[in-house]
């Protein structure tokens, strides 16, 4: 059915506002979740004074960061110093625009649960990840500080090395699906519940672990967080940043975590499909919509929990171990995964 321009623009604007608000709230509460979970892993409570179970802590933290003095050192290169955290936050927010949250529910032809439905959604995610390197590189260079520059160069080298493994691990899924469109990728996994998900029935478990490790390195999270470890390089590329600009880097890191969780559920764990097949998947349009969002949120929450669990458990990699792991282990294993997957798919299809 034909989509008219003005309703499309208005609905897109509404979707963007809703998604950004929910995303930023999620970022704030992910910080709280991390502090509480890491606290429990370390046998202490985590924030529990402000509000019941510490639930008002993000509000208070936000107010504190907002009211802190915004230092601008004299010798920084100003345009890039101000631009770098903006780039980091923009890339983090943009990648959520191609992620479908729920089933294909339309209103007058316009998708309701995805901001931008296009044929190359997966490539757009990879492209935004690639552009996100600039936030790190430019912040380190413009700070005019040896520690920042070294931290930025290390962090950028880490990010671009693991980008390769990330991209290669997704090729197996594209071979199984035959399309780069995110809704098609979930559609292929919707047939038999748990068994048709790419992790189980698609046999992409190797690709999943490669993706997970590459994503942990991309988002600079433990155990790959050497560039921002306090004891190593005096906080690396965001040494010279204070208050709001530091908060932007912080938000972009947690935003990237959430995006990685969303993409992992879409690509490997069936997105919004129920693990029980058609049971608990809803019958009418309203119940399908609500249950699909419920399953999606549960799975993303599981991934956030996994992220924080790994952070609280594993020790940090040393830089040369990190680079060796990315180049000498992940990339060959990802290529081997592509070869094996293509072989299996090629043997199953009739010759064309």
């Amino acid at each position, binding site marked *: 059915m034909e989509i008219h321009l003005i309703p499309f623009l208005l609905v897109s604007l509404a979707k963007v506002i809703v998604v950004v608000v929910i995303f930023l709230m999620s970022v704030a509460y992910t910080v709280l979740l991390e502090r509480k979970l890491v606290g429990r892993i370390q046998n202490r409570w985590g924030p529990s004074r402000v509000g019941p179970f510490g639930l008002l802590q993000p509000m208070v933290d936000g107010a504190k960061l907002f009211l802190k003095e915004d230092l601008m050192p004299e010798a920084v290169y100003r345009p890039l110093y101000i631009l770098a955290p903006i780039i980091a936050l923009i890339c983090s927010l943009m990648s959520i625009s191609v992620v479908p949250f729920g089933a294909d529910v339309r209103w007058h032809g316009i998708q309701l649960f995805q901001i931008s439905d296009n044929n190359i959604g997966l490539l757009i995610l990879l492209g935004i990840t*690639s*552009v996100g390197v600039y936030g790190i590189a430019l912040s380190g260079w413009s700070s005019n500080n040896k520690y920042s520059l070294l931290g930025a*160069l290390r962090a950028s080298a880490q990010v671009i090395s693991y980008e390769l493994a990330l991209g290669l691990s997704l090729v197996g899924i594209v071979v199984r699906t035959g399309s780069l469109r995110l809704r098609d990728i979930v559609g292929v996994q919707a047939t038999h519940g748990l068994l048709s998900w790419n992790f189980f029935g698609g046999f992409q478990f190797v690709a999943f672990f490669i993706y997970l490790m590459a994503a942990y390195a991309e988002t600079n999270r433990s155990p790959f967080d050497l560039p921002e470890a306090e004891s190593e390089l005096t906080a690396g590329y965001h040494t010279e940043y204070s208050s709001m600009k530091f908060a932007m880097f912080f938000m972009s890191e947690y935003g990237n975590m959430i995006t990685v969780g969303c993409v992992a559920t879409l690509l490997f764990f069936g997105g919004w499909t129920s693990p029980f097949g058609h049971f608990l998947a809803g019958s009418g349009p309203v119940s399908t919509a609500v249950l699909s969002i419920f399953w999606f949120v549960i799975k993303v929450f599981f991934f956030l929990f996994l992220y924080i669990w790994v952070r609280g458990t594993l020790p940090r990699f040393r830089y040369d171990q990190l680079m060796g792991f990315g180049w000498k282990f992940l990339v060959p294993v990802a290529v081997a995964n592509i070869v094996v997957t293509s072989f299996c798919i090629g043997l199953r299809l009739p010759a064309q």
Partner: protein
Amino acid sequence: MHLALFTIFAVLCVAGALNLLLQRHPINSALSLIVVMTSLAVLYLLLGAEFLAAAQVIVYSGAIMVLFTFVIMLLNAGKEERTHGSKLAYIAGFPGAAALLGLLAFIFISHRGDYGQARLGEYLATTSDLSRVLFRDLLLPFEVTSVLILIAILGAVALARKEH
């Protein structure tokens, strides 16, 4: 609407290119070039080349320009100085480029009826269309290109290594 989008991103392209020309510090030129490449990606999308738009962002903006930025940062390139060769280049460079632009623009505008109009949404080249040609008809150039990249990697590593 198509014309509005084309105009905005064409103006961004030309502004970025002029900024590359006029800035003294190479890092500003590099950032302007990133703006040009991303605007060009949108223009490719308007012409129906969706895979190439994504590839432009991933390969050009996200990898090649990162390489340029790294080199500028590592070599600590400062502002440009005026040397004796630059005066001569100003005298020969601007008129030469202007003559080239005049010639090309004249040819394209005088034949604009032959080229036709592009409508948004028609002749969309999906990734499967491109890959069908790339992996069947042009398999040999594809394989040769991958060998070329391997040679480039080896060459770059050998050239940039420190002398012991």
